[in-house]
């Protein structure tokens, strides 16, 4: 018998990738006639290295990540939005340390905020605070790329504010940190996306399509009855101990891709930061026409 087409995907232990595990458990991949190999990775860096090395075909990342890959030639394509802030489930929160009195964005003027620089977290922090009326000068950021370290510095008060992703941010909240803002009020900025390598897209369009369909099916399952997937989530996704039961399983968007406006805003930020010399074109990097924008 012929081997079913195989897709290799690297997964960080974050809630955004939950649909893959659900689809796997429900047998949606087998149903669609594809084989999916998952590789657990510890950091975004390593995930990107695997892609660079040609050892994986797909990953969940951010718009800016895919843009970086496509700096010179198109090497990755965004096929869908993996997760976006919705309802009361943000992706990221800007927190202040328990001992500080900071609760509103304007109090953050001039206060160093721990972020991972040149990532969606910095982008989001810039945009959220900018929207709240802070000037570029007033937004001060400090690089702390390791998440637990960032949280530790925040909780110990060594640093006054930090932007953290859920569920770590949620755990920090429970440990006493104040929420200054989260991204639910501006859901445009912080979508994570499902990207595939250009080779996989051109060489195996059908398999990719089948994979995305299976993902969406799983996403719908989760949206329909989130709580039933808690055991699976706790097994596959890193959720801090103190919020293992209280962390709300987020809703997942179905059949959407990032909009041109979303993409262009990221490009503007990246060129401004010098990460890109010139913006990458929306049309080359995002697969349109299949899903709604």
């Amino acid at each position: 018998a012929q081997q079913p087409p195989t897709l290799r995907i690297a997964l960080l232990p974050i809630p955004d990738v939950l649909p893959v595990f659900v689809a796997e458990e429900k047998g949606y991949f087998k149903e669609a006639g594809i084989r999916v190999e998952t590789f657990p990775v510890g950091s975004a860096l390593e995930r990107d290295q695997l892609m660079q090395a040609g050892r994986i075909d797909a990953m969940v990342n951010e718009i800016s990540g895919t843009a970086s890959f496509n700096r010179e030639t198109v090497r990755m394509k965004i096929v869908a939005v993996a997760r976006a802030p919705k309802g009361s489930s943000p992706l990221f929160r800007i927190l202040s340390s328990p001992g500080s009195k900071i609760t509103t964005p304007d109090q953050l003027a001039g206060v160093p905020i721990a972020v991972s620089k040149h990532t969606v977290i910095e982008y989001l922090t810039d945009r959220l605070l900018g929207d709240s009326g802070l000037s570029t000068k007033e937004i001060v950021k400090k690089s702390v790329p390791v998440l637990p370290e960032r949280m530790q510095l925040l909780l110990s008060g060594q640093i006054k504010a930090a932007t953290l992703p859920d569920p770590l941010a949620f755990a920090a909240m429970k440990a006493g940190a104040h929420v200054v803002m989260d991204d639910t009020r501006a859901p445009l900025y912080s979508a994570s996306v499902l990207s595939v390598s250009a080779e996989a897209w051109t060489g195996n369009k059908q398999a990719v399509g089948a994979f995305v369909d299976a993902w969406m099916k799983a996403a719908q399952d989760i949206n329909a009855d989130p709580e039933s997937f808690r055991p699976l989530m706790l097994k596959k996704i890193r959720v801090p101990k103190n919020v293992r039961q209280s962390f709300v399983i987020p809703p997942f968007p179905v059949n959407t891709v990032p909009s041109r406006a979303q993409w262009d805003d990221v490009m503007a930020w990246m060129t401004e930061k010098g990460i890109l010399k010139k913006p990458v074109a929306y049309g080359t990097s995002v697969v349109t026409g299949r899903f709604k924008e």
Partner: protein
Amino acid sequence: MSQVRRRSTPMGTLLGSLTLLLIWQVASMLLARPILPPPTVVVPLFLKALPGDLGLHLLASTARVLAAILLAVITAAPLGLALGQLPKLDRIVGPLVAIIYPIPKIIFLPVIYVLLGITDLSKITLIAFIIFFQILVVVRDEAAGLRRELIISVRSLGAGRRALFRYVYLPASIPAVLTALRVSVGTAVAVLFIAEQSLTSWGLGYYIVVETYQVLMYPEMYTGIMAMGLLGAALYVLIHTIERRYAKG
């Protein structure tokens, strides 16, 4: 250089460990933060976890470290000996080593992935690659510093380059290799910490970073650190034992 060192005794080890626990306890009381839980919490947890998953993580890491050390020694030691013997070669390779040596090899992980794929071999190669240089440098320096009379007198028995290598440089550098190894064991275990974060679900690096540190389970994290310390100490003792057998006179 080659004296018998009767420096580690069971008694001393016990005392040393107790001292360490004491320092830890005091430090944790002074710091009084969840990031440094006291040994009174961690040690019982450790003893409970060791026969379970933690033991398996430890085994996985041990296997990787041993394989990497082996790989590094069998490549670095002969090259170090050769460089120590051949100043001309060393004059070219030396600067090369000096430049490559401090570069964080983790950078080459993608290259290793391309070449070796996503197997355990990649991790082992990375660790071996890192300690390779440490062993190389120490062995070379030792070989270059051998007493002249020794070499002359063995040459006068008919030894050429190869026999000198076999009967003088090799045995003379065993202590150096072991010293180098002692230095490298620390590095090797530390690299595990990075290398095991991805592409595996077994190993102390994975356990510490992914399973515990990232989800803020500090006491559990420290059981992992204790296991790492244990692994390092066991390797250290192993090296010591070999050393005692070889270092005579």
